[in-house]
């Protein structure tokens, strides 16, 4: 089964008013089971809007969104996905453990089940020793890991992430990227990942979907196949070639086969944000 199907979706905010904005125009997207898809594009291209549509936090003006074979609204009610935002958004009055327990609480799991599952998730993100801490006691990177653990707590088949590492420094960001890949591989979760970092999108994804603004639409869909997803992968020619390809797609120049020359220039500026 396909994890996500978005078909001919249009989203217009404030329809019929003077401040009407066409955020998305005729978008089609399919995410296969277990696939990691990144949405990338300039600000205002509607990538976050698209993510929110999949999450049923907003409704499409026209078109349909299907998550795990059912309507997005039904999927949300069954907690068929986990979500993480740019701000960790932890509840400061709850300990780390109780933050991860929150979605399980709302699902009606027993106290013991909740605790066991939450501890397991904290171990997954390497924070089992901080279960009793309060969010204010943790650094930004640690808070984001708690947020990821919280998103994974219900073991959803789909993970939605809106620039989750956007507020972190480069070192923390790279470490969390590797951790995220490990987790996704272990749990076989499908992921939709919004970012505006080209290198992040290429490193993480099976496929990078490039969007453009006004009106928001998908302009390219680039399959990524790196030899490995580790530090060696970050140095491989395939990685730089794909970075160039995504960059060209973002600029709107036709994505021709990249020459060796262009991959060198990409190597000179890997921080292609």
């Amino acid at each position, binding site marked *: 089964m396909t994890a996500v199907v978005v078909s001919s979706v249009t989203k217009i905010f404030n329809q019929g008013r003077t401040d009407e904005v066409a955020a998305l125009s005729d978008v089609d997207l399919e995410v296969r089971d277990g696939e990691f898809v990144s949405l990338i594009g300039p600000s205002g291209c509607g990538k976050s809007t698209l993510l929110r549509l999949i999450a049923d936090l907003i409704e499409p003006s026209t078109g349909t969104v299907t998550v795990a074979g059912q309507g997005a609204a039904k999927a949300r009610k069954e907690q068929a996905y986990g979500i993480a935002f740019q701000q960790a958004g932890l509840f*400061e009055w709850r300990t780390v453990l109780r933050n991860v327990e929150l979605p399980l609480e709302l699902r009606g799991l027993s106290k013991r089940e909740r605790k066991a599952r939450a501890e397991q998730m904290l171990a997954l993100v390497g924070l089992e020793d901080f279960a009793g801490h309060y969010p204010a006691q943790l650094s930004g*990177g640690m808070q984001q890991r708690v947020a990821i653990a919280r998103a994974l707590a219900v073991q959803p088949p789909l993970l939605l992430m809106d620039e989750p590492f956007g507020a972190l420094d480069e070192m923390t960001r790279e470490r969390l990227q590797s951790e995220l890949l490990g987790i996704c591989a272990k749990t076989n979760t499908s992921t939709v990942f919004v970012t505006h970092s080209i290198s992040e999108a290429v490193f993480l994804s099976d496929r990078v979907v490039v969007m453009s603004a006004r009106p928001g639409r998908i302009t390219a869909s680039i399959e990524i196949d790196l030899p490995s997803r580790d530090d060696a992968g970050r140095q491989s020619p395939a990685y730089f070639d794909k970075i160039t390809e995504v960059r060209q797609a973002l600029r709107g120049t036709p994505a021709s086969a990249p020459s060796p020359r262009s991959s060198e220039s990409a190597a000179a500026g890997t921080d292609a944000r």
Partner: protein
Amino acid sequence: MKRALYVLLGLAVAAALWEGYKVVGNPEGTVLFGVRILPRADDLSMPHLWTVLERLGRPELTGGRPVWIVVAQACLFTLGITAAGFVIGALVGLLLAVAMERFRVVERGLLPYVILSQTVPLVALAPLVAGWGGTIMPPWAVVSVIAAYLAFFPVAVGMLRGLQSPSASGVELMRSYAAGWWRTLVKLRFPSALPYLFPALRLAGAAAVVGAVVGEISTGTRGGVGRLIIEYSREATSDPAKVYTAMLGAALLGLVVAGLVSLLELPLMRHRRHVEVATL
């Protein structure tokens, strides 16, 4: 320990100011161009502190009970009225805040009247409410209603602010968990509102004391410290220290209420205490 010391220091400074002014101040008060800018410092207007303390130990009337017992009992009576008013006011404030948060229309329609309610002078309102005493409720309950009328306001306004404080992403998160309005209220909005609620409750506590004292005076309810202040102030020319004993009682009552309210805060705000950040 350190805090207790500061409290004592504060008392000492206040006492020194009082007695100091009595030493240097003009007994007739300082009058400039026909306007009295500094109060009289004579023993009639400002009795010595020890006179007040000593008055506490002497009987109220010849052969009666000592003043301090009378004042303490009156304070207890008023404390009961204040507590009832505080609880009613806090509950009404909470309900109003929840209703205003839930329905935009209610907020738009009600909030101006909530604010307006506090500009109506209490002394004008009290006699109206006083008529209820003895018919639909006991006389002391009328005073509680007046106290509640003052106490609900800070709670309603503060709590509304608190309920609206969660970030959009927090609300979206709850929506992503398929949590409805009630569960979002319980799991997200209430806990987020606590830092707004406690200062509001402290204000409400102070307002309830004022409401109770003024309510007793303007409805003529017997037994409380408000009534005592009125009774004793009639004897102010012959026995100036006496009225100060009642005022001292009222001030202590306010402190006790403020202390009790802040006790509520301790178990609920544990996460605010430690702030040391771990990095990993």
